[in-house]
């Protein structure tokens, strides 16, 4: 194989190493990775802790949202019931959908990644453990506050897709809708933090030799999942921001009377919302493709086809969003495109389903608990997929859209495609995460209750919908023939809940989290996560030679445990992991890993508190919480780029690697690039919104400010970019006073940017543009608003740079924080310059 980085592949032949390992090597490794004790436990960042807590939190929200569903089914058991009132009911279904989608499904699969990925990839931990812990705590605390709104009748009640104008200030004057917008706001932050972690983890921390062709299907699924998050979530971030701006400042993005359009929300929401379904499904499918070969004892038939299918799903899923809008009166052309794409997206699902069936046929399926949940999930998912094909046909969708038929369809897809695989995964991976496996007996009872309950609940709902019952109704009238079908569904819901209860009892009785001494490889699985492990993950990081390492090399378990591969101890004396190249996973450098810290913990708590205080417009306390959160994040960032004692270290078998990556090699650079990609998608969607609203009401648009101001604004941004690129060069020069000059250039770059931003704003106001009066005003000022946010972030970064210079922490050899800040500045200036060009040249000059 051709080397990607210049690393000599022959070096792999030095492993497994021979001879005794030095005295105390393992003890040193255990010592640096040992978790904090007592109350410090909250500051822990090891993926073993964080992953389990993450899964626990997601499972908690699953249970809570499930209880809400039971209350709803009780209300609908009989016609005209008075179990809950209409207002409560509207909050119940909004919360059920919102929590299941945002607080259960996405976090649950992200949690699986946090727990499993490092071990699956043969890494010590994920590349940004504190970021993972931050994502967990922000999500858990914020999510619980969000959930509690239901007890005060303050929960959102606009349905989980929150269509305006129902959710606008006029029709939802209370703070209920703000709870949704801000609550979902930081959960998006949490999801994106997790996605960055996963992408960098999969691309840069794979065990040496684990080329893309030898990468486990689980890692593929997680990679595609995370990439989809960073494409899809920016759209909902933008949508929620615009809606909150409309509610707070009366900017009419969605108000048709003033040049907005309610359909803009639907486009932005579903551009996120439909890929979201596959975002949830793909990791679960990846888990299925991981478990089925083990349970059926045969390698996955058509592994490359399955990988291609997952990639295709991710790709096509971004072309289907408008199938949620078939009944809005779309042009026939669009209906055709979205109809075709929606059907096409079922093809890769078919490929995966038949790959699973072929694998079962090639092997011999075991009917243990994971096996049963796999089979049940497969069948349910196929049924949901078939109704999905039906509603992809616009004329059929016109019949069943917004009825109980859709309720049935989406629950078949999500329960079959995600919930059952996750329950299979819980039974499959508890021996990895705990001291004992779960009970086969209880698990089987749970499966049959859930499988039966699922069909009893949702199969009749297809008919309920065709019988004319719309979704989201708090009651139905008697003598309309809807009594029996609803009663059956209610009975089924309680059966399903009993099944979940059985699993909870099983977990309480048998799940004992273990960071070492887990139950071991009880299913005879081939994956690296089943290697003997502790808090440090595996003792040594093996060279991966196949897709099924433990099946192909039965000695691997022993060799790894004896420390016969990479990093058998701690090479730098600190927490560390191996950073490898993106394609061939060739070792590049040893990354020092962070240690437990209170900074990210308090940063997360105060981020959540900040958002939640914004809900009741408590701006004073919110500002305090926001400042504390920022201070915590700065404290967290302060320790980055610490000087290391050694430039290179021995990572095993005499192979020496640097202890630091520079420029695009460094994993920090990767993370920032991904973050900027997210911000770039936000900018692109903003531009789409701008053009979309123009196309609706061009008559209300005014002429842009004079041309000279455009030249000044763009000139300011270009100057800012030039200064930053210069500073990045200067800081690398090993000469006196260069640190001071570079710092000065950063300050000037910020000043140029801030000036350009202010001139942009002032000239638009001078031209008479009012954000509350037209779609043009609202969108142009939303660009300026976003840019204002970025200018503040850049100010904090400038402050950070200045403080590091004052404390003498700038070093030419360790410029990564400079590189990362430069990237951010360049992006911010470039996107603002583009926005200025768009808003001042179009419409008018260019068209």
């Amino acid at each position, binding site marked *: 194989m051709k080397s990607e980085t210049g690393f000599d592949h022959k070096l792999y032949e030095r492993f497994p190493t021979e001879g005794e390992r030095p005295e105390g090597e393992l003890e040193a490794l255990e010592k640096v990775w040992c978790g904090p004790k007592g109350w410090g436990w909250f500051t822990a960042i090891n993926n073993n802790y964080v992953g389990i807590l993450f899964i626990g939190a997601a499972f908690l929200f699953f249970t809570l949202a499930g209880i809400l569903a039971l209350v709803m089914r009780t209300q609908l058991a009989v016609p005209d019931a008075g179990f809950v009132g*209409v207002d409560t009911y509207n909050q119940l279904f909004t919360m059920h959908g919102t929590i299941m989608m945002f607080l259960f499904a996405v976090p649950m699969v992200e949690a699986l990644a946090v727990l499993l990925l490092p071990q699956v990839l043969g890494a010590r931990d994920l590349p940004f453990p504190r970021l993972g812990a931050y994502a967990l705590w922000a999500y858990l605390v914020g999510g619980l506050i969000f959930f509690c709104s239901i007890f005060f009748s303050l929960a959102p009640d606009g349905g989980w897709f929150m269509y305006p104008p129902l959710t606008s200030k006029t029709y939802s004057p209370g703070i209920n809708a703000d709870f949704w917008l801000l609550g979902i706001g930081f959960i998006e932050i949490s999801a994106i933090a997790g996605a960055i972690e996963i992408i960098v983890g999969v691309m840069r921390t794979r065990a040496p030799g684990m080329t893309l062709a030898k990468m486990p299907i689980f890692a593929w699924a997680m990679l595609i999942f995370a990439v989809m998050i960073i494409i899809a979530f920016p759209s909902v971030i933008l949508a929620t921001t615009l809606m909150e701006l409309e509610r707070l400042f009366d900017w009419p993005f969605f108000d048709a009377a003033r040049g907005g359009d309610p*359909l803009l929300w639907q486009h932005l929401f579903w551009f996120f919302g439909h890929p979201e379904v596959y975002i949830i499904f793909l990791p679960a499918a990846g888990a299925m493709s991981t478990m089925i070969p083990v349970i059926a004892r045969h390698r996955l038939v058509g592994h490359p086809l399955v990988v291609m299918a997952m990639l295709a799903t991710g790709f096509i899923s971004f072309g289907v969003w408008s199938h949620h809008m078939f009944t809005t*009166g779309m042009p026939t052309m669009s209906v055709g495109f979205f109809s075709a794409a929606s059907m096409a997206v079922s093809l890769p699902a*078919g490929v995966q389903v038949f790959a699973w069936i072929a694998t*079962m*046929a090639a092997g011999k399926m075991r009917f243990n608990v994971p096996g049963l949940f796999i089979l049940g999930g497969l069948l349910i998912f196929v049924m949901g997929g078939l109704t999905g094909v039906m509603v992809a046909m616009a004329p059929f969708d*016109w019949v069943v859209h917004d009825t109980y038929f859709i309720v049935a369809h989406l629950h078949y897809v999500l329960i079959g495609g995600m919930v059952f695989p996750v329950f299979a995964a819980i039974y499959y991976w508890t021996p990895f995460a705990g001291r004992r496996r779960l009970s086969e007996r209880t698990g089987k009872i749970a499966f049959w209750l859930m499988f039966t309950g699922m069909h009893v609940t949702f199969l009749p709902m297809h008919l309920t919908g065709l019988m*004319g019952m719309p*979704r989201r109704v708090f009651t139905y009238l008697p003598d309309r023939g809807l009594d029996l079908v609803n009663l059956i569904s209610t009975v089924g819901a309680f059966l399903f809940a009993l099944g979940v209860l059985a699993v909870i009892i099983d977990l309480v009785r048998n799940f004992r989290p273990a960071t070492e001494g887990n139950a071991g490889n009880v299913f005879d699985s081939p994956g690296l996560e089943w290697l003997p492990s502790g808090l440090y993950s595996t003792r040594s990081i093996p060279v991966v030679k196949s897709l099924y390492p433990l099946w192909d090399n039965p000695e691997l378990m022993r060799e790894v445990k004896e420390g016969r591969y990479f990093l058998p101890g701690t090479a730098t004396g600190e927490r560390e992991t191996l950073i490898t190249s993106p394609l061939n996973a060739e070792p590049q450098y040893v990354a020092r890993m962070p240690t437990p810290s209170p900074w990210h913990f308090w940063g997360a708590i105060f981020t959540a508190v900040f958002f939640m205080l914004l809900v009741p417009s408590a701006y004073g306390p919110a500002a305090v919480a926001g400042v504390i959160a920022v201070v915590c994040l700065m404290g967290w960032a302060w320790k980055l780029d610490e000087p290391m004692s050694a430039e290179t270290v021995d990572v095993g078998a005499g192979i020496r690697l640097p202890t630091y990556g520079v420029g695009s090699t460094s994993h920090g650079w990767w993370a920032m690039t991904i973050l900027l990609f997210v911000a770039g998608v936000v900018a692109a969607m903003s531009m789409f919104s701008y053009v979309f609203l123009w196309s609706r009401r061009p008559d209300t648009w005014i002429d842009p400010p004079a041309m000279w101001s455009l030249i000044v604004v763009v000139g300011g941004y270009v100057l800012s970019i030039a200064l930053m690129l210069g500073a990045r060069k200067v800081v690398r020069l090993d000469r006196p006073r260069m640190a001071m000059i570079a710092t000065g250039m950063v300050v000037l770059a910020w000043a140029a940017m801030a000036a350009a931003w202010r001139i942009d704003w002032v000239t638009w106001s001078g031209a008479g543009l009012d954000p509350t009066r037209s779609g043009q005003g609202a969108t142009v000022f939303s660009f300026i608003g976003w840019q204002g946010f970025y200018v503040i972030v850049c100010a904090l970064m400038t402050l950070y740079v200045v403080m590091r210079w004052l404390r003498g922490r700038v070093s030419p050899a360790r410029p990564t924080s400079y590189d990362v800040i430069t990237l951010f500045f360049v992006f911010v200036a470039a996107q603002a310059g583009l926005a200025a060009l768009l808003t001042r040249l179009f419409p008018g000059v260019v068209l």
Partner: protein
Amino acid sequence: MTSPPISMSTEAFAGWPPPALTSAGPFAAPLVTLSWGVFAMAAVVLLIVIAALVLALFGREDLKAKIGNQRLIWYAGLAFPVVVLSALLIWGLSLTSALTGEPEPGEMRVRVTGEMWWWRVAYLNPEGGEAGAVQSANEVRIPVGEPVTFELESADVIHSFWVPRLGPKLDMIPGRTNILRLQADEAGTYGGQCAEYCGGPHALMGLVVVAMPRDEFDAWMAEQGEAAAAPTDALAAQGLEVFQDNGCGACHVVRGAPGASGLAGPDLTHVGSRRTIGAGILPNNRGTLAGWIADSQGIKPGNRMPSYTTLSGDELQAVAAYLDGLE
């Protein structure tokens, strides 16, 4: 919630046979055919998957070996779905164009405006305007056997207009006018329902479409164009007084009654001739009218009409008699 609404077994709103599968006109019939077509497709595919699964799990070794390889993925997972989906796509697209055709010139036009949580109905004049148009609410009468164009609009939030036995559903979106064509081939009453969640008592936002033979329809329309009938008996006359004293006219139009010109609620000029009240949820008679006025919040919680709990039983009877007489 207090007293449950009285049921209305006479109108085919929902239930068995499923209205979405029981078409009553040319815009619904192809949807029913399509529905049965896709159900059949789904049944066949599901059986194939189950058969493959059973074979994979319990089949003889030689049979299992036949399907335990990549060929199964190519044929069953890719080639077969491509064929099925292509056929469905063509069928669906041709139906899409057929059902969204332009209205014919001279077709009767009705503007239905979705409001929280009822339907404003205007029978447009031949020029397509509302000048002199008959106004009504929650009930649309159409001539049998003729296509009727519905202009769907919204006064507040998004609603969705759906009369399952007559055709597809279509959203009512602020700032837009959506065009839907429906036709009933038989005289009768067809239930409808708001399908898009519109807050509050969205569940109780129903409507009725009544199809009548052309001559009866014309006669009915002529009557609707007239002003409200004056009360004919003492009770109804007392009812008119109650109506006026309690400010009902601030929200309701009764053409011909002084002061009754409010546009917030349904036009009541001919309310007595309608089949239902409360937006398709109660049959229309004196008892339900009195009940609705006294306890509209109990019957339809959250709707915009307050419960007139201060009215005495006699007053309620009187105003109900007055409204019932507005035929």
